């Protein structure tokens, strides 16, 4: 065995063998771990999207996937339709911005949440910036401001708007691309929802 590997050809063969073995073991391990973890990861994602649905459509007790379209129907305790939620996305400045939007029966926005974004820190990320009401010194001293998690001030503008009045939303200077991408995403989603609702009827 040893002698084979000492010749020049054998040496090359040995390199190929080692590298091949390393890659084979790695690929095997990875596919095993991936198969094991993937169902769990999917479940986590679904759970996160689910809690976002309750957040963007207050008053809804249960959600039902629409038969044809890509949205969810929110119902209250008595089973009456409260509104709809949908996911929408648009390319921002440096990432895909994914949103969850809730609208009531009249098409007015009841809530909006950014599910994922990876925009420039300090500029694009201002679309999810929450206005602060207490400083770090207050925090250290134990003086708490309002504790309730509040909405980012940019997204607050969307509340109560429908497809037509969406133009009133002011984009953020210094974050024009990111903030107008959010507006476009919402508009796109609302138009799609309207079309799908018509089809369903």
């Amino acid at each position: 065995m040893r002698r084979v590997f000492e010749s020049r050809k054998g040496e090359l063969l040995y390199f190929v063998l080692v590298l091949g073995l390393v890659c084979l073991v790695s690929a095997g391990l990875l596919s095993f771990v991936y198969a094991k973890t993937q169902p769990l990861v999917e479940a986590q994602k679904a759970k996160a999207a689910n809690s976002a649905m309750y957040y963007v459509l207050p008053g809804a007790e249960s959600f039902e996937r629409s038969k044809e379209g890509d949205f969810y129907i929110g119902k209250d305790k008595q089973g009456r339709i409260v509104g709809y939620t949908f996911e929408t996305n648009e390319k921002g400045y440096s990432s895909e911005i994914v949103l969850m939007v809730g609208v009531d029966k009249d098409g007015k926005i009841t809530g909006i949440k950014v599910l994922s974004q990876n925009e420039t820190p300090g500029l694009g990320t201002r679309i999810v910036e929450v206005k602060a009401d207490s400083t770090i010194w207050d925090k250290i001293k134990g003086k708490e401001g309002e504790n309730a998690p509040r909405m980012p001030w940019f997204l607050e503008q969307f509340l109560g708007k429908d497809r037509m009045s969406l133009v009133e939303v002011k984009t953020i200077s210094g974050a024009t691309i990111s903030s107008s991408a959010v507006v476009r995403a919402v508009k796109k989603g609302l138009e799609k929802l309207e079309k799908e609702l018509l089809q369903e009827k």
Partner: protein
Amino acid sequence: MKSLVAEFYKGIFKENPILVLALGLCPTLAVSTSLQNALGMGLSATFVLICSNILISMFKRFIPSRVRIPSYIVIIATFVTIVELVMEAYLPSLYKQLGIFVPLIVVNCIILGRAEAFASKNGVFASFLDGLGMGIGFTFTLSIIGLIREVLGAGKIWGYPVSLDFVPVLVFALPPGALLVLGLMLAIKQAGDKR
């Protein structure tokens, strides 16, 4: 025994990965926008660094030196991806905080640099100490840069504003600010060494 302690110590100051070896500058510049990000990146990288050092020093005998670099890359990338998948599946809240840094660690040259310069020539325990020291040095330096940039660039510490009516100097939150702060830190370290 004394030399083992030195292996641990050297990463923190004498051979600080950022300030002296100038390794891992890409994540240093990219992720040091806030203290929270810096600490997250530092701790994740430290964990991966320790584990990859241990793995490499264990396998070093079987890997011929002429194919060592591709082998190390595959081993490290595999290990990092497994950590990412397991974290995403079982520790979703931790993944939410650190998840974005994990893929960045694969391209962090400190990991490959230490595998090549240290773990491939030393024993398992010494490699562990080397990884730990280097990781702490990296985390510490990154956190200082993160803190400076967060205070100046966003007016915040750990996500909380320093003062309600401070207008931040945005350039510090952007790549030029990262280069400025890093450059000044390098200069201070050099001045300190010269003395």
